[in-house]
């Protein structure tokens, strides 16, 4: 979607609600590829696979003994990995619904887990303040490498093509550049709960617990924009980019979904947005391809699929 056409409005019309989770839903991810499916994980220790188009649950992946805090889907949609309170990364086979590997080693709950681009390595960031990089090719039980630079729990991480980016409660966004062999740590001063780089890997969107979402320039570490007026002080509320990375979307603790213009950082209308969830919105994710689709997961145990009022109008 070319930005020249202007910012497409945030999909605000409720398409369907996915309600089978029994407790707070902590993560909701689109599948890769055409992203026809949604995987959600929550406090009820299950990972559920949905068809957001019709709003039906396809499969339940039960195996976690504790809450599911993070999910990542492999590039080929054959497997996905999830992690949570039980201190090991579970790698699931989507078709059979069984765990193909369990990677224990962390000392605390694992907040985030991410595949790399071809799902040969899975990175997991944990409450024990380390990021462990696991090799999925070999059958080794030891991680390839442990990144223990963080001084506090690692809340979020992103694995790019040649870099690994972590966000930690100690207020740092750390970029491990594999090509340069360099670690760049940017201090934000507040616990970082979500990071998401843009597709060009030049900037990164970082949400912190001071109710701010910042767009940082990765080359210099300078903030390009600061998005505020939502409230996010104690929960992980993931921020993401809207359609074509022209806007920034973030749920907040009041159940509102905020959207800002990426360039001038003004909240998009409606301002203030309506309250769409009873409790804190833990995760927002925009559809990777479709302009007019977005999912929000909330602690009120529901996942909502939003579509544009006139999806093809743009």
């Amino acid at each position: 979607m070319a930005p020249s056409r202007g910012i497409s409005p945030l999909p605000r019309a409720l398409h369907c609600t996915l309600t089978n989770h029994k407790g707070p839903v902590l993560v909701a991810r689109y599948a890769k590829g055409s992203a026809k499916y949604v995987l959600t994980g929550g406090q009820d220790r299950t990972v559920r696979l949905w068809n957001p188009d019709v709003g039906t649950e396809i499969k339940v992946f039960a195996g976690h003994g504790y809450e599911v805090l993070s999910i990542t889907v492999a590039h080929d949609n054959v497997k996905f990995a999830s992690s949570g309170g039980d201190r090991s990364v579970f790698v699931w086979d989507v078709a059979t619904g069984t765990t193909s590997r369990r990677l224990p080693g962390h000392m605390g709950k694992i907040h985030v887990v991410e595949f790399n681009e071809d799902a040969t390595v899975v990175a997991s960031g944990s409450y024990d303040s380390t990021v462990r990089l696991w090799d999925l090719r070999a059958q080794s039980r030891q991680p390839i490498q442990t990144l223990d630079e963080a001084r506090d729990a690692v809340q979020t991480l992103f694995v790019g093509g040649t870099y690994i980016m972590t966000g930690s409660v100690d207020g740092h966004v750390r970029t491990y550049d594999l090509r340069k062999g360099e670690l760049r740590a940017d201090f934000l001063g507040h616990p970082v709960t979500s990071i998401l780089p843009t597709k060009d890997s030049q900037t990164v969107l970082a949400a912190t617990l001071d109710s701010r979402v910042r767009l940082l320039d990765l080359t210099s570490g300078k903030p390009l924009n600061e998005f505020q007026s939502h409230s996010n002080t104690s929960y992980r509320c993931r921020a993401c980019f809207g359609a074509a990375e022209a806007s920034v979307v973030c749920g907040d603790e009041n159940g509102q979904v905020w959207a800002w213009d990426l360039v001038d950082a003004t909240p998009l209308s409606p301002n203030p947005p309506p309250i769409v969830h009873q409790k804190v919105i833990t995760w927002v994710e925009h559809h990777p391809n479709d302009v007019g689709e977005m999912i929000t997961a909330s602690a009120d145990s529901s996942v909502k699929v939003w579509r544009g009022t006139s999806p093809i109008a743009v």
Partner: protein
Amino acid sequence: MTARLKKKLGEMGIDPSSSKANESFCLIGTPLPPLEKSKDTGEFVPLWKQDVRDEKGRRRLHGAFTGGFSAGYFNTVGSKEGWTPQTFVSSRSDRAKQKAARPEDFMDEEDLAELKDSQKLVDTTEEMDLIGGTQSEMRKRGEPERDSIVSALEDSLLPAPKDSVGARILKKMGWRIGNGIGPKVTWEQRKRQDALSSSAPSADDEVPESHDEEAAKHMYPPRDSKVPSFSRKDNPHGLGYVPGMGLTDLVAGKSKDGGNTTGPNLSAGFGLGALNDAEEDDLDVYDSGFNKSSTRLAFDDADEEERIVMGSRNKQSPTKKIQKPGVQPSFQTFQDGRAVLPGFVLSDRPVVEDKWYPLPEVPKGWSPDPRRVWEKDKENIVTSGQPPAVPPITSDHASWKRGITADQRGSILGETPLPAAPKSVFDYLAPKDRERLQSMASGQPLETPVLPPAPTLSMARVEPQIAKAALNGFQPFTADPVKQTRYTAYLQSQVDMEDVPIKPTVGQSMDEFHKELSDYAKAAQIFKPVSGTMAGRFTSAAIVEQVGNAQEGLHKPKPAVKQQLDEQPAKEEKQESAKEHAARLGMFGPLTREIKPWQPAKLLCKRFGVKDPNPELLLAEASTSQSTPTAAAIAWKPEDALANADLATAAGSSKAGGGVAPSSRTGGRRDLSNVGLGDDETQGADTLTYERPAKDIFKAIFASDDEESDDEAEKQDKKMSASPAPVSKEPEKPVAFPPQSVTAAHSIPSTSYGPQNGERSAVGVDLSSFKPTFVPRADREKRPKSDGKERSGKKEKKRKSGKTALVSFDVEEDGGEAVQPKKKKQKQHHGEDDDGLWVEKPPPEIVKKLDPNVHLPTEQVMETDVDEKLAGPQRGRKRAVDFM
């Protein structure tokens, strides 16, 4: 057969003598059992036909020789598969149906039968069923199992009646419940008994008072003897003392000669015989009851209570309740859930009764004024006039209880102390010795026993080095900052060998303080980091557990706590704060950015498809720091690790011998005596650092002569060109070129080449002075060439032999006439043994002639210059030795 019948048969055409005609259809008597069936059990069966069967006819023994007992296959399980684990069935929904598992549930019929037999022996004497409806009876009748609630109810309503054998015998002898034991007595006797037991005839006595003369006609069972009841002694009175009874009462009670309450009471007490007179001889000494209401009968014939009753019918008695089975459930449990023993009941009163006295009523308008009391005391002291000789006895209970010693009393009374025996060893000593001892004692600081707090502080000591290590190690009290500071202060003091600087906190008793200190000492012992070799393998965890109640949402550490946790030097802290400051001001960018080198793991680079950014960093990191486990794991080198371990052990266990050993070992020669031993530090090191020798060495050793090619020759040329002498390009040339002068100068010591031109073949090889030499193949190639055409025939031979043996020696081809046959044979034998092993080379004449020439360039170059190609053969020689 009658004649008539015969005739009739004849008419019918049947031969009367035939068997058909004689057939009989009558059976007379009982037929014998058929022979097959009549096999009696006692019949002899050969051993191999016998088999063992149990009472149900199942075969018990199976197996190859019929003696095999395959338990678990046929006998116990009854299935080929044996026990298969059952699938789990949740019993969550039917918990109520579940009973506690009894042993009988797990028994098979044989066990049950056994159990029944054993129960017959034991239980029949124990149980008697008056109403015939006990649980065991029910069970025997095969009544279906009832659920727990029903059985509990039944138990409580109808407890299993039991009667002892004695009671049963007595009953058979005519004894009735409620009567005493013994022959029947007359009315008079019984009345006397009543009088003796001081119990008035009870109201429910079946014999009325009025019919005395009628009553006298009958005989009566004697009164039942009473069960003594012992009441708990919960007062501070003396034994046997009845509160409120004075001495006069006691005397009066005695004079009344029984019949009143005191007499039997006394006799029921202790010290009975000596104090009481013989007038109460016939009194039941155990009879303590006074009236009917308080009599305790072993068996009470109250009509509504048919069952055995222990205890009295006294209304106040706590044991009353068990008499009513409906009231008291039969299953009582203690507070901790254990069941009360059968036959016992829980008292509803606690063992120790707390007595609460009501507070005295404070008059209205009263306000506490201690000064008044003090004034009063002062008045007392003043009014007493003289100072009391004795300190006023304190109201302290403990001191009162202790009383005063005889000496104290004596001193109070002003007695002169008696000349007592000397109590101390010092009293026996001569005054001189005593003085000397005292002077010696005074020379030493003997205050410690005098000062009470001093030894208590010294008990929680920690060795300085441990304290120092613990200071650097894990900090256990981070959750409690105050405690942590106290802990570090304590450790610091222990490091400096000072006194403990911390004082007890407010409201902390000395004992608690000491306990705290000893806790610290223990913690220091536990949390000191691992020393020595292990130290480098662990890093302390970065995570710090925060004790405290969980809060909702993400955890955000307070800056104060963070500062405390971070044990970073002040400078870094300052930098951190600058960073924080910049972040607070929103001045993100260079101020808040830190760039450090970071080494991704090699495998990670591979997985990401990225080239390793700085591969040389691996080595540098490995050599400089072993601190990061990942870096160490990436480039772990055994030599480094060993060296480090050596250093660590040497440093850790600062032993005298420890430091010497590693250096001597690493520097020491390897020989057969120490290779492969456990303490060989360098073992395996050469395997790991082994580098493949140049290819031409392998060629030199293993390649056959056929493969000798032009490039080989070219190499040879190059080799030669390295030598100072000018060399032509032709391969023949270097062979022809003999720099004799250099040879003379060199004079290889290993070979005893005396005459360079001599016909050594005739002389043969001197065994004593003979030394083997290894000839590089390249040299050998030249040799035959140097001989030119005359050698061509032999060259063919050599090629053939070169094919057979990988390491070929000139001896075999041309030593025929040169070397003694004996020696040759020996060598051949060796060659057969192990080709690779054999490096000995006899110097036949041609070789001798050539060898110096050939050796010369290599040796020379080795000394002067390190050429790779020339080093090849040299290394090849080394390798040959190594192959041994």
